[in-house]
């Protein structure tokens, strides 16, 4: 053994790359581990994406109608925020590997703030908007069917114990045809308004639905659902996909926070930063696919 040390200038047993595994692949075990984790994540996300594709293909009009209600600008802003966080994460990894503590802390902080901004927009603006968006069926004596439907956003300031005030659209529930509170959207009410059919089943009159501020007595409410997963299949998919992605963002934020605290204390963890960076870029990558699939098509 000592001969070979002299011959080649290194200790074969301990430091020589193993010729069996890829001619001494220098990939550190930690990196292999995080990539294996990401591999399982690919399988996880493709499973729920495939579910989404199948469910969407079953009700294409429904999905299209409610997907078009999602705000493209807000979705695009969130996409840009995540892309920016990916950039600063890559820069943080670079700074950490070069031993630049201050730069590492600053870049990690920006990444963390971007992640927070993403979650604030996602939950504080988008989810909150869906939570406040109600479809209510209520008893209405002015309607020929005895019921009216209103779809709009809950106005907390104007509502009280006896009445609920919504900003949206209202129409009488038609006496003929099918009606499902899970399938009706604000757009339907505004566009279709009140439809009455004649004896041949053809439309005779089409009055525009009322749009604006609508108050409903709480005691008259027959059905009330908001735009959460129980609204319909589209929102079930929307909340499942974005919710699971959001949980990944939150998990990444915890890791980023720990890295940041360690860097602040003077402990740079270049390898760990790189692995968490890989995870973070993956979360960004998932959103790059979710954004067009939910908001744009």
């Amino acid at each position: 053994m000592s001969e070979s040390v002299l011959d080649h200038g290194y200790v074969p047993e301990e430091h020589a790359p193993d010729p069996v595994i890829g001619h001494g692949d220098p990939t550190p075990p930690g990196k292999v581990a995080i990539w294996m984790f990401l591999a399982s994540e690919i399988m996880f996300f493709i499973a729920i994406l495939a579910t989404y594709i199948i469910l969407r293909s079953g009700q294409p009009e429904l999905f299209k109608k409610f997907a078009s209600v999602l705000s493209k600008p807000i979705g695009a802003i969130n996409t840009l925020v995540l892309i920016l966080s990916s950039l600063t994460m890559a820069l943080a990894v670079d700074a950490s590997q070069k031993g630049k503590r201050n730069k590492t802390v600053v870049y990690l902080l920006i990444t963390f703030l971007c992640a927070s901004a993403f979650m604030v927009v996602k939950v504080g603006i988008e989810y909150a908007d869906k939570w406040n968006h109600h479809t209510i069926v209520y008893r209405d004596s002015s309607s020929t069917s005895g019921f009216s439907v209103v779809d709009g956003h809950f106005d907390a300031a104007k509502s009280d114990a006896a009445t609920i005030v919504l900003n949206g659209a209202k129409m009488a529930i038609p006496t003929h045809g099918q009606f499902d509170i899970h399938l009706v959207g604000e757009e339907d009410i505004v566009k279709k308004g009140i439809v009455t059919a004649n004896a041949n089943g053809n439309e005779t009159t089409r009055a525009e639905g009322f749009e604006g501020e609508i108050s409903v007595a709480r005691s008259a409410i027959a059905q009330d659902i908001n735009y959460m997963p129980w609204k319909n299949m589209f929102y079930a998919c929307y909340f499942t996909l974005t919710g699971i992605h959001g949980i990944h963002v939150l998990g990444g934020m915890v890791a980023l926070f720990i890295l940041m605290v360690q860097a602040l204390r003077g402990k740079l963890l270049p390898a760990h930063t790189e692995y968490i960076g890989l995870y973070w870029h993956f979360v960004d990558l998932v959103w790059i696919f979710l954004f067009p699939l939910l908001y744009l098509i």
Partner: protein
Amino acid sequence: MTSHDTSRMPDEPHGVSVLTPHHEVPYFVIFAALVFLTAVTVAIAFVKFPSELINVMLALAVAVVKGSLVAFFFMHLKFEGKLIYLIFIVPLLLSILMIFAIIPDVLMTAHDSNSASLHLFNAPAIPK
């Protein structure tokens, strides 16, 4: 003994790269490209193509390009060895297989739309 030792010698001095994992990547250029592509994909979404399939395919094509930029440059895939490729290519191939596997389901439901939303208010009310 001697022949055994030579067999242990690596073909190339791969091990050296462990100590210098710095890759000069034009991060800001990649970032600019991603921002540009995001703008492109949003712009495409507002264009009405004759077939909706074109919209979907274009959106996915842009997403694939963006995803590749993130993977190859931000995730340093460009500089990784065979092992990392081997790890992620397997689930990627399985994912593609999965998408092909659901095609029958998609085709079966596509023309049998139970989307009542279409006929929500103008379904023939009275049978002729």
